[in-house]
């Protein structure tokens, strides 16, 4: 029992060290984009919302999957605050309910913009949010913008 307690304490402690601050560092403009091969003209706010709470869309958009960008950290906070009026903590609680009831999964996370761009070009079904200037630099058309 003591060993189990130590393991739990170690898990929590190490988790604390690995978790970044909750605070946004800076505001910014965020857009949702897909790869060049994607022929979609746009996405509605409702569709983006559904994608980012783990739901699938209907019709010709049913193959779309959302990615989440880890860097820069403010992008996620701005995105979820503007899309859903949620903080990262609230999103974590939402996903916890979905994950442990088997009703959904949070979007897969990509580590940086370059990795996101590479994924988008390799799979036309993926969409990701990113800073507007990064999308413009990669000549990606915004499907949804805040």
């Amino acid at each position, binding site marked *: 029992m003591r060993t189990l307690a130590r393991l739990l304490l170690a898990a929590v402690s190490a*988790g*604390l060290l*690995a*978790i970044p601050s909750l605070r946004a560092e800076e505001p910014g403009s965020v857009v949702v984009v897909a790869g060049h091969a994607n022929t979609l003209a746009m996405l509605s706010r409702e569709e983006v919302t559904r994608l980012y709470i783990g739901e*699938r869309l209907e019709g010709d958009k049913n193959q779309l999957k959302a990615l989440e960008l880890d860097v820069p950290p403010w992008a*996620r906070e701005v995105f979820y605050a503007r899309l859903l009026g949620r903080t990262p*903590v609230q999103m974590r609680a939402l996903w916890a309910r979905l994950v*442990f*009831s088997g009703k959904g999964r949070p979007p897969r996370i990509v580590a940086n913009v370059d990795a996101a761009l590479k994924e988008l070009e390799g799979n036309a079904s993926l969409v990701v949010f990113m800073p507007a200037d990064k999308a413009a630099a990669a000549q990606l058309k915004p499907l949804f913008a805040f």
Partner: protein
Amino acid sequence: MNGSGDQCGSVRHSPVSTWRRARRLAAALILGQAAALAQADEGGAIQVNGFINAGLARSSFDDARYKYIPTADADIGTAATPRVDTQAGLQLRYVHSDSLNATAQVLLRDPPSDGSPLKLTWAYAGIQLTPQIEVKLGRYMMPFFLFTDTRNVRYAQPWVRPPGEVYALVTNTEFFDGAYLRHLTPLGPWSLATEAFVGANRYETLRASLSGTYYGMAFTLYDSNWTFRVMAQNGTTQLESPAFDRVLALLQQRAPDVAADYAFAESSNTGYLSAGLRYETEDWLLLAEVAETRPGDSRLLASDTGAYLTVGRRFGDWMPFVGYAARRSHNTEADARITDPLASATVANVLAQQNYSQRTVSVGLRWDLVLNLALKLQLDRVQPSNGAKGSFTVPLPAGQTHSDVFSLAAHYIF
């Protein structure tokens, strides 16, 4: 933390090394190297998630100890105890493809009655029939109330524990074996989730064994801020209780005219009705639910109505909240038709033991110390109704109207 995919529980499949990678991943999770929820489906991936609840609670009395779930063993006296609020869960999910996955979830907890502290509470094959329809076949938890299927994932709730006036109505039920279907319908900015479920279960309480087959439906309408939910479940319950056997035998002997009304071995039309409301913005959280149990045809079993209202306000990483909850047990009065003194007193005592009527006023504070870890304090003032035992081992001491339950907890997910 939201790290890269490799850090967060998704590993690519290869026939040779999947199991070894899964073991390494599990070890990394135990060591806290990955502190994020495993992410969306990747074909051929194993995903690992878990939660840890560490809590202590104490109440005002040792003779009338507080029981969060009256039919469970664990109770809370004046010495702080971790028994009620300490659990850990681990979920393993294998994603074969976009349309097929397998999920297992084990729960480590103080068992509600005799048995192992480790329980397989979820084990199902998930089949995505269409983008909007998913079916689960196997072991799962029926979604009676807003948080029933995630009631042990305390991180995802504002409280130290969900209000017992509603959530203790599920008694010792931890899972059902059967089938579950969920259909999502987009309605403009709203979504309608229709859930249909059927399953069987068996569980033990302090004095009885219950089993049954049940079916139900739930409709949940939600948008970014609002959630409205209604649920109905019904079925047939088989009850084995040596104590009730003796009561029924006594009635058959001393009050044969009414004994049939107290037969309990098999009851049809047993189940729950519930309605729930959730409103959440970046600053405010409002939760309200009302639920009702139907014990079936037997006069020997009481029914209950429970409800709660919780309001929280966020200030950055802090969220104070207040709550009010009430439970009313019905049909707990003595049966005037029974004229035999011994039979009347015996039945009255059995029914009085099922009178859980009470109300609870709660104040609490949640502090999101970091993204995946919340610390919580909660004070519940629990006041049984006049003459009722409420959620206590025995009625409160003479002259006492309430018991204060003080709780402290840390809730962590990965």
